[in-house]
């Protein structure tokens, strides 16, 4: 009888630990890689689909997956997924959490969540997929915004949390996105938005203005942020300004407006000013120029000469929505410590065809890119030409690295998750 009990417990323990054992080596990818294209040697499987409006994604040490949702699904804002059979596909999907938003990260035994006006955290519970409901307020007092409201957060491992506070504006015009309205100078939004704010990572009830420190400024909006542990610095990728043609048709034609300005990749050091709204980066002239709202003529730099340049420039409007420095050893050596960036895909290129809807890779050596960027995963849109944003079937929005080195990508249209693996 005693032995039987021990045996039963062993079986139970074994069964319970099964979801921790999904290593990429035992996985069978989907035929056609779930609709996406990848470099040779890489393949993908669909972990889950139809989760809702997915934004960012976090994967725990045991393989459990958490996805933030922009809109509630089953009246909840977080999708929790677990694979209990070891085939990489989630067979348990549960919803929890009352907040909706973008940022989601596992940190110090909690699931941190970037609701659009606050950062909260839900306690993880040993053995449980779902975190507890008794959430705590970490940072609050963020402005009520109706654009660029996403609050992604990142940690430096030294007790600090960095939160993007996007500027609720295109170029800080006196009248929101209205032709002929001049840029406000100085731009008052920069006092509380358009930058990165630094908080303590486990102090409750911090207020943005009284407890938070403005770590960097002149960043219009950066949903993609990541702490690079190799060099101990924060990196973000900015959503550049829109509508140059619409507001300045005499200076920019529709094609130029579709191709300017660059989406900028920033190494964010403390106190840095990247120039928004006064400046934008012209990737063809390779310099920051004065924005037309502030008297710019497409070429003059004036105050923009002193603003921080990007470490890399991407095509305009393609919407960088997540950044991940790859530290796994599943992928080949080339990818080690390099950056993956999920580009959500453009809207502000019309009437030109839209662009983006892919995941790119940027090789790194130390603090800086060691080569040009390349498209790593493509085909999310499901069509060659996207004229209207809605034509895209899927839009990559969030990235995470699994404990085995798999790369997870989550889509924002339907909430599909791909797990990308490599087999030599």
């Amino acid at each position: 009888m005693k032995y039987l009990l021990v045996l039963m417990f062993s079986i139970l323990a074994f069964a319970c630990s099964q979801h921790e054992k999904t290593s990429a080596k035992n996985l069978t990818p989907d035929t056609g890689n779930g609709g996406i294209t990848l470099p040779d040697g890489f393949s993908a499987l669909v972990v889950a689909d139809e989760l809702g409006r997915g934004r960012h994604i976090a994967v725990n040490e045991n393989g459990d997956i958490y996805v933030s949702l922009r809109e509630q699904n089953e009246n909840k804002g977080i999708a929790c997924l677990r694979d209990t059979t070891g085939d990489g596909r989630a067979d348990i999907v549960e919803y929890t959490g009352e907040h909706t938003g973008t940022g989601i990260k596992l940190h110090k035994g909690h699931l941190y969540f970037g609701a659009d006006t606050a950062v909260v955290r839900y306690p993880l519970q040993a053995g449980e997929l779902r975190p507890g409901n008794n959430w705590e307020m970490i940072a609050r007092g963020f402005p009520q915004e109706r654009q660029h409201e996403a609050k992604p957060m990142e940690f430096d491992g030294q007790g600090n949390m960095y939160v993007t506070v996007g500027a609720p504006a295109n170029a800080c015009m006196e009248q929101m996105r209205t032709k002929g309205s001049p840029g406000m100078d100085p731009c008052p939004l920069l006092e509380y938005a358009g930058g990165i704010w630094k908080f303590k990572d486990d102090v409750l009830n911090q207020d943005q203005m009284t407890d938070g420190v403005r770590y960097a400024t002149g960043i219009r909006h950066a949903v993609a942020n990541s702490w690079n542990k190799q060099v101990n610095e924060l990196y973000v990728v900015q959503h550049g300004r829109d509508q140059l043609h619409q507001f300045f048709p005499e200076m920019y034609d529709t094609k130029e407006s579709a191709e300017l300005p660059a989406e900028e990749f920033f190494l964010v050091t403390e106190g840095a000013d990247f120039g928004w709204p006064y400046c934008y980066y012209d990737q063809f002239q390779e310099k920051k120029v004065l924005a037309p709202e502030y008297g710019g003529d497409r070429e003059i730099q004036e105050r923009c000469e002193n603003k921080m340049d990007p470490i890399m420039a991407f095509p305009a409007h393609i919407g960088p929505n997540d950044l991940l420095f790859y530290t796994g050893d599943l992928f080949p050596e080339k990818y080690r410590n390099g950056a993956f960036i999920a580009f959500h895909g453009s809207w502000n290129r019309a009437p030109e065809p839209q662009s983006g809807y892919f995941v790119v890779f940027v090789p790194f050596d130390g603090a800086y890119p060691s080569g040009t960027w390349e498209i790593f995963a493509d085909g999310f849109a499901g069509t060659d030409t996207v004229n209207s944003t809605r034509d895209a079937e899927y839009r990559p929005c969030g990235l995470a690295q699994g404990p085995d080195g798999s790369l997870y990508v989550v889509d924002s249209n339907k909430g599909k998750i791909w797990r990308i693996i490599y087999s030599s």
Partner: protein
Amino acid sequence: MKINGILFLLLVFLLSACGGRNQSSQQQTETQIQTPGGTEKPASMANHPGKKVYDSVCLACHMADGSGVPGMHPPLIETDWVTGDKERLIEITLNGMSGKIEVNGETYNSIMPPHSHLSDRQIADVLTYIRQSFGNNASEITVEEVQKVRNK
């Protein structure tokens, strides 16, 4: 004379062939312009004066086919916001709009800037254009109707 006649015939034939090609290429262009779900009459709306206003003012956010941007800019297709109450539509165009709205089952919570700088004629044209394009088939909006809302 005989040769002239043959030449004439040949010329007519060639011309008609060219004309034919022109026509078919035009048709092709029209098909390309049509949206995936495009049930509108592109020939009649393509020359509508409201299209010019739409292309320069609205298209950047609401897209050439009126489908909008998921989660950001609501679509103008098959929605009461466009084909319903004229006064509400004129008001939104003049004064802009903010706050949560639901369109075709999806929630939008962004900001539409005011467009009171457009003339009554431009607003009447563009609103008639969107009410009769993208598969919509609602009545036109007149300059007088815009005037009335503006002067309210």
